[in-house]
């Protein structure tokens, strides 16, 4: 076994400079994530959790520190860290199939044959149960479906780490629950390494192996890391009454609303 974590965030600081004003958004973020682990980052809005995800994705540069994937530094975006964006970010001129196929064609251009790429695209649409709408355009499907396609596109890249940026944030509660179940099922099947940004306590506890709680910005830090020792596969209804679940939920709530309550919201 390796002595280093699969994905390592090593003393990351992030300072935004606008004109002469400097804003320190993230301060000394250090975290290790193991292969196959599902880790959530939770915090109030504005605490820089999306900034952190963008740094891991390579879409933003770090100020100091670094991101190491399999002990190698990554500082530009790539399909090994596929992102499911909060607002789906599907290309409206491509069909559902076309959106996933674009990613498949790009990532597996020299590796898979045309027929294989076609089959792989369909396979991933099937994984998120979107095969029925493969010829529709994003404007013709619902928000939950768009998010499923976004997930299929990310999964199709066979990323080493799947980055989810509040993927269910814009959905209604029922659709959200449905999609969470899908993500759990896919994670159970493929055992992906997942890093998810969220501000939903129940979502974090239900889905994660570990929950990283961030303090309020500016200069947000990791306040606490909580293990969620619930056996998988987890069933929403059973877990809801489980003592461990309730204890974890309580811990996160305490952190967010007692020790680090959101000042601006008061």
């Amino acid at each position: 076994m390796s002595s280093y974590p699969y994905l390592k965030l090593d003393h990351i600081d992030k300072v935004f400079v606008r004109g002469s004003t400097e804003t320190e958004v993230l301060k000394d973020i250090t975290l290790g994530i193991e292969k196959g682990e599902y880790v959530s980052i939770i915090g109030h809005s504005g605490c820089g959790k999306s900034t952190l995800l963008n740094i891991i994705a390579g879409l933003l540069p770090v100020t100091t520190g670094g991101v190491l994937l399999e002990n190698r530094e990554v500082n530009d975006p790539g399909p090994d860290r596929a992102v499911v964006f909060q607002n789906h970010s599907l290309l409206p001129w491509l069909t559902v199939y076309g959106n996933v196929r674009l990613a498949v064609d790009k990532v597996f251009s020299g590796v898979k044959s045309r027929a294989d790429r076609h089959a792989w695209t369909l396979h991933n649409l099937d994984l998120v149960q979107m095969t029925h709408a493969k010829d529709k355009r994003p404007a013709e499907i619902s928000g939950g479906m768009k998010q499923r396609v976004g997930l299929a596109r990310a999964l199709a890249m066979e990323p080493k780490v799947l980055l989810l940026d509040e993927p269910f944030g814009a959905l209604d509660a029922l659709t959200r629950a449905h999609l969470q179940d899908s993500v759990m099922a896919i994670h159970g099947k493929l055992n992906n390494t997942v890093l998810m940004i969220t501000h939903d306590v129940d979502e974090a506890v239900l889905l994660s192996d570990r929950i990283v709680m961030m303090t309020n910005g500016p200069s947000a830090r990791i306040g606490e890391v909580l293990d969620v020792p619930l056996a998988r596969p987890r069933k929403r209804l059973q877990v809801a009454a489980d003592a461990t679940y309730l204890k974890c939920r309580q811990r996160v709530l305490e952190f967010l609303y007692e020790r680090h309550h959101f000042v601006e919201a008061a």
Partner: protein
Amino acid sequence: MNMPVRKTEAVIALPPTAAKILPLPPKRSAWTSRLMARLAAIAAHVVPPIVVLALILAIWEVLCRKAGATLPPPSRVLSETWELIVDPFFDRGGIDKGLYWHMSASLQRVAFGYALASVVGVALGTLVGQSTWAMRGLDPIFQVLRTVPPLAWLPLSLAAFRNGQPSAIFVIFITAIWPVIINTAVGIRNIPQDYRNVAKVLRLNHAEFFFKIMVPAAAPYIFTGLRIGIGLSWLAIVAAEMLIGGVGIGFFIWDAWNSSHISEIILALIYVGLVGFVLDRIVAAAASIVTRGTAAS
């Protein structure tokens, strides 16, 4: 269509002689009624312009029938230009040709100038939209140059090319290029950051980014520019041809004026208007095919 089939049971119960036969409106089949609905919809769009056109022609006829009228009434326009209308293909050498030849000469110049303007305009617009430095450097110059009237370029291009044909094409080019550049640049600048992020995660190279993200994302803007451009091109060609002479609808009009064939001028104007309308429709149709899906994001 015999009655008993359609009549209700009540009729069957009565003796046939006592039955009072009500004249029911003949039942139309679904197909016929749909056809009627379609025809009614088409008529609703076609009838109003025909009525207005007829009114305009009637007023024109009345006004220009009077003695001392300077312009011919529509009836005389038709009789005087009948030969030109029925035979657009004659060719007696020089500039004594049918209207088809004049139109096609003008359209060819527009096609060359406009095609050139489209390609160069989209390229320059992309540059200005993508690069902040290119925008800072080029945009002020574009903003000044685009206000120069098309015909003001003609003497300069005649001096440079020393030939009417390339000069006319250049005037079309310089007329059509500004809206293409400006709209393309706006379209490129408005590409959502999300699409750029997707491209980065997928590691699309420059060519892939251009063809798979930029062009489709900016297509609605680009086509707005192209549509304005084709309209301006057609406006400019008539004026430019009046000055350069030779075969072309512009010089045809000028020549008709010099020979006092007012009816021919009117006919040419109608043709210019119709062709301009068709050109605009063609670009609009191309736009709606290419940008389908994009606009409804």
